[in-house]
């Protein structure tokens, strides 16, 4: 029940219109010390307690008073002599209670006449048992409510503890996430480093190839041997033109590395710093790379990156002035067959 619902239940409580469960819920709420509901209840109870003044009055039967006075007397007689004959004028407002709950101290117990006292207590005990029955029941209800309330409190504190645990878990999770992120960035960095190293290695290889002829010729040829065993390598053969009838070449494309390998044989030596240039002809020729044929060299291997190999219609090798040209200008030496 929300507080608003509880507040709404107060006037119904005052006229006794609530169901048992609702009544208990409201009583538990009042026990929890809600001041506004308590104030409202007091006012509504005051209203309820004057409602009978709105009734038409009917006087009770005349005989009733005498009957009540008489019915009351057997109880009263046993008490009143004690009160009247008591040596001490000590019957305070609470004294009547003492008959129901004999005081633990014996200060005045001895002075009372015991036989009368015992009889009185016995009679009163029976009488008051009935009268108190409802009071006790109410007390029990209140106790039950208090217990329920305590249970609710315990549950609430357990909930709080669980929530705390949950918060801690969440914190741990966040920490772990941060760590993972850190690791991930480490890995990325390492990958970058690896790529850089690979590039450096490539550079070193190229430098090595440029420096030592025999060495360079061998290692790429070994690589070529590996490449030839790779299943999905595409091959295009090139034939020598009239410029070099004995020359021939084969172009291999490795899709995994997107590299082309041009293995050419019997091309003439490049005169005066001129250079051979390999072209991939799409709609128009695009330069793939350049290579030299020195004197006495009969075979050459050129390895270049070429991502769009498959879209090229033709391949050719021309002899170009030093440094190469963006478009082929010199005579063609090798041309692809297909």
């Amino acid at each position, binding site marked *: 029940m929300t507080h608003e619902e509880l507040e709404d239940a107060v006037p119904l409580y005052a006229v*006794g219109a609530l169901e048992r469960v609702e009544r208990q819920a409201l009583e538990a709420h009042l026990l929890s010390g809600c001041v506004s509901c308590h104030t409202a209840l007091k006012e509504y109870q005051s209203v309820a307690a004057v409602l009978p003044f709105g009734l038409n009055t009917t006087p009770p039967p005349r005989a009733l008073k005498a009957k009540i006075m008489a019915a009351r007397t057997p109880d009263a007689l046993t008490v009143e002599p004690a009160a009247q004959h008591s040596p001490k004028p000590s019957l305070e407002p609470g004294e*009547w209670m003492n008959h129901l709950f004999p005081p633990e101290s014996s200060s005045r117990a001895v002075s009372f006449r015991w036989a009368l006292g015992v009889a009185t207590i016995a009679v009163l005990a029976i009488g008051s048992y009935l009268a108190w029955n*409802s009071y006790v029941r109410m007390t029990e209800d209140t106790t039950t409510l208090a217990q329920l309330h305590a249970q609710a409190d315990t549950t609430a504190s357990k909930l709080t503890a669980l929530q705390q645990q949950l918060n801690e878990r969440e914190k741990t999770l966040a920490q772990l996430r941060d760590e993972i992120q850190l690791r991930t960035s480490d890995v990325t960095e390492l990958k970058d480093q690896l790529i850089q190293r690979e590039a450096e290695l490539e550079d070193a290889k190229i430098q090595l190839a440029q420096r030592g002829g025999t060495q360079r010729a061998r290692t790429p040829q070994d690589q070529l041997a590996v490449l030839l065993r790779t299943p999905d390598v595409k091959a295009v053969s090139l034939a020598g033109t009239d410029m070099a009838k004995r020359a021939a070449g084969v172009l291999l494309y490795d899709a995994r590395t997107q590299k082309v390998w041009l293995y050419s044989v019997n091309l003439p030596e490049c005169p005066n710093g001129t250079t051979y240039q390999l072209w991939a002809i799409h709609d128009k020729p695009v330069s793939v790379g350049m290579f030299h044929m020195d004197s006495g060299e009969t075979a050459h291997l050129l390895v270049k990156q070429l991502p769009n190999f498959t879209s090229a219609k033709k391949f050719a090798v021309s002899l170009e002035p030093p440094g190469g040209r963006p478009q082929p200008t010199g005579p063609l030496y090798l041309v692809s067959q297909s």
Partner: protein
Amino acid sequence: MDAPSQQAASTIDPKLLARVVKGDQQAFSQLYDQSSTLLYSMALRILGNREEAAELLQEVYLEVWRKVARYDVGRGTPIAWLITLTRSRAIDRLRARGSRAHHQVSESLDGPSATQVADRNPGPLEAHADQELRGLVGGALAGLPQAQQQAIELAYYEGLSHMEIAARLNQPLGTVKTRIKLGMSKLREHLRHCWEQGDRP
């Protein structure tokens, strides 16, 4: 002590109960004189039967005689305590009686209603203070819409819960709750306004 205050139910002095606690016969007799007409009228309204109302009243006064020490002035006026006790015992009796005498309750419903202020016939001995309060409460009740007054009376005088009232009147539960809430709220406003100018009964 002047006669009117001796007779008024609304002005029972807590000291009178303190005297009853001591076993003062005269105080008990006076308590009866001041309160019995009001309590009997209420018992009659609840039980709808004179004999039973008289039986109940006897029960209540004997309980008062035995339990008067339990009265706590901090929790309300003496008459409020007596009214609450009488209502509670009467409703208990009504419930114990069950449906056997249901027609008697209906009979009482058809009887004179609290709203018939003009018809009220205060006894010649009725105290001035009570007359004022009767006028006040009667007027406040008469100022309520009939439906709200009926819902409050079914709860208060017949001990019905809002669910039982809804079933009895064949009305939605929310409607019944609202009627009681609004009615009680209006009564509270009305009475608070008057109480602020005088003593709370």
